[in-house]
């Protein structure tokens, strides 16, 4: 799994690629929380386009990020979900909880 | 309980080839020999099993943490509470009584020589060297040794041990190690407490009947004691702790199928622990006697 962040205007975009599993999800969590808590980004976009598999710990990390973003009054947006990731979120009934966008422009504007 | 299980083992027919020609007595003699041999082998195998279990528990306690495996201190602390702190009331009462009894018994003999003031020394030495560790062990066997066997035995019957294994958790590391650590720490502590309560029990008699004041009794007890007396008792208690853990857990692991088997394991754990604790006591007492310079 690879993870990197970049700025686009006021938003921070977190690009993740590969599989998110039990052993690397703590890194996703760390990057997310750092962007929200330390950089105080008003909008964090998690780009999951290149993610083919996400397990429960990955989902849990996203949930934690969402909770922190709500507390801080910023926004967490998921971008470009593959079908596999979409299935996992739907199964956990989280597809309605997260803000999901298909394109980067959408995610930046919405 | 193979050590005690002399009866009920039939000799293999191979060894009774000469049944026709042998007299009844000779046949009996062969059978008895075979039985004794079997029982000896069973006992050795049992002791081997205990040693293996104790060794693995010691490995997970002392070696594995240095190799990056986590030692769960929280679980050990919980066990220590159950094994140690909760045993204090009953242990205090029992060893206090034992102290009084010791004082009465030694006074019975000492009175004849008009040496009643030696009562404090007699009680202190008997308590620290022998009865403190032993009574502590007996109380801990009754409270914890049996509980270990029951807990692990129940887990075996309900497939919880299998569940641990399928979760890639080692049952010895997960279940035995915290108990082992708790016992190795708590038994010497409890023994020290038991020694103290025994001496207090002796003081009750000393003050009431032997002309001591409370402080003079304590001072006289301390004067009679050498550091060696206390360390001897503590080393014994350490060995008792390991023995009780190994037997309790071993009996738990060897529980068969069904709830009644848990009861059997628990009983076996108690009987076997008492037997082995006394055996260990004998070995160490003899060892200290022959090696101790006076």
């Amino acid at each position, binding site marked *: 799994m690879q993870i990197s962040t970049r700025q686009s205007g006021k938003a921070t975009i977190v690009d993740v690629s590969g*599989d998110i*599993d*039990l*052993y690397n*999800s*703590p890194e996703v*969590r760390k990057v997310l929380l750092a962007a929200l808590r330390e950089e105080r980004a008003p909008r964090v976009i998690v780009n999951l386009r290149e993610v*083919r*598999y996400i*397990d*429960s*710990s990955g*989902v*849990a*990390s996203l*949930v*934690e990020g969402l909770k922190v973003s709500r507390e801080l009054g910023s926004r967490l947006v998921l971008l470009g979900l593959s079908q*596999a990731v979409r*299935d996992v979120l739907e*199964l*956990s*009934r989280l597809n309605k909880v997260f803000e999901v966008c298909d394109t980067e422009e959408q995610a930046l504007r919405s | 309980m193979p050590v005690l299980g002399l009866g009920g083992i039939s000799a293999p027919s191979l060894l009774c080839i000469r049944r026709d020609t042998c007299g009844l007595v000779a046949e009996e003699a062969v059978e008895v020999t075979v039985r004794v041999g079997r029982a000896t082998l069973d006992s050795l195998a049992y002791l081997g099993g205990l040693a293996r279990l104790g060794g693995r528990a010691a490995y997970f306690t002392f070696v594995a943490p240095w190799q990056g495996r986590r030692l769960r201190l929280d679980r050990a602390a919980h066990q220590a509470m159950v094994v140690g702190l909760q045993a204090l009331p009953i242990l205090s009462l029992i060893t206090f009584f034992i102290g009084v009894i010791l004082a009465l018994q030694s006074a019975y003999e000492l009175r004849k020589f008009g040496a009643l003031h030696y009562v404090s020394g007699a009680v202190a030495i008997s308590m620290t060297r022998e009865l403190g560790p032993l009574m502590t062990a007996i109380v801990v066997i009754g409270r914890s040794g049996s509980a270990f066997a029951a807990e692990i035995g*129940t*887990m075996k019957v*309900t*497939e*919880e041990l*299998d*569940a641990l*294994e*399928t*979760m*890639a*958790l080692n049952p010895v590391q997960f279940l035995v190690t915290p108990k082992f650590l708790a016992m190795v720490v708590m038994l010497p502590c409890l023994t020290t407490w038991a020694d103290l309560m025994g001496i207090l029990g002796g003081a009750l008699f000393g003050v009431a009947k032997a002309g001591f004041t409370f402080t003079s009794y304590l001072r006289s007890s301390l004067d009679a004691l050498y550091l060696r007396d206390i360390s001897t008792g503590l080393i014994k208690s350490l060995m008792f702790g390991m023995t009780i853990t190994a037997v309790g857990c071993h009996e738990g692991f*060897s529980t*068969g199928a069904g709830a009644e088997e848990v009861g059997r394991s628990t009983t076996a754990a108690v009987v076997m622990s008492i037997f082995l604790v006394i055996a260990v006591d004998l070995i160490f007492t003899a060892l200290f006697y022959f090696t101790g310079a006076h």
Partner: protein
Amino acid sequence: MPSMTDEAQQNEAIVSVRDLRLRFGEREILHGISFDVRRYETLVILGGSGSGKSTLLRALVSLEKPSAGEIWVKGKNIAQVSGAEMDEIRKKLGMSFQGGALFGSLTVGENVALPLREHTKLEDLTIQIIVRLKLEQVGLAGFEDYMPSQLSGGMKKRAAVARAMAMDPEMLFFDEPSAGLDPIIAAGIDNLILKLKKAFRISIVVVTHELASAFLIADRVLLLDKGDIVALGTREELRENTHPRVRQFLNRIAEPEVFEELDYLQMLTEKHRPRRR
């Protein structure tokens, strides 16, 4: 994931059993059986009591050592791997036991969290979220702080499934999921298995003697009788199978009397097995 087409992955064996024999002392329970569990399929091992089906399942998760033969799980022969390698394989599989086998001294939530706490470096909050997700998935949301003894039989099994799923396994094993449950609760467990099968890309092996349940959840059914495989195939293939034992087993619903007599006869004449100690 490997660059295979979905179809190739579908037919790939995740478990391969080859000529497996297993004996307890004198008595041989499994007489040299061979079969595969394919990736993402649900295989139901069906058999009467004494057929060796539970022993087979225990062998698949390495709780029993084979006397002969091979069991390949994810490309490793588990009859020969080291303890450390077996542990790595076991982290990828979940097992739900007959009675649940929840740890009585831990709450339901702690039970589910246990493998995560022991095997991963996840934060407590992350683990807590995973635990709640898993309990939600098995329909036990809100029962996190209950002790196992406070749960009914069906709820215990659901909690056990949540625990088996905690590490997101690739394989899930069920030992008699409906045993000891009333028909309605048992149907609920069947539905749970169906739901998991649909939602997760996961291989499921279920051991059961319940015919209806087997035909509801299985992609393929393996019929085991006295330690031998009598039939192995899809539900349709099994229905059309003409082997007398298969017919006997499948017609059990229509003619229960015949079968009870056979079971009774087997019970009366079965070889006495001394206690193992």
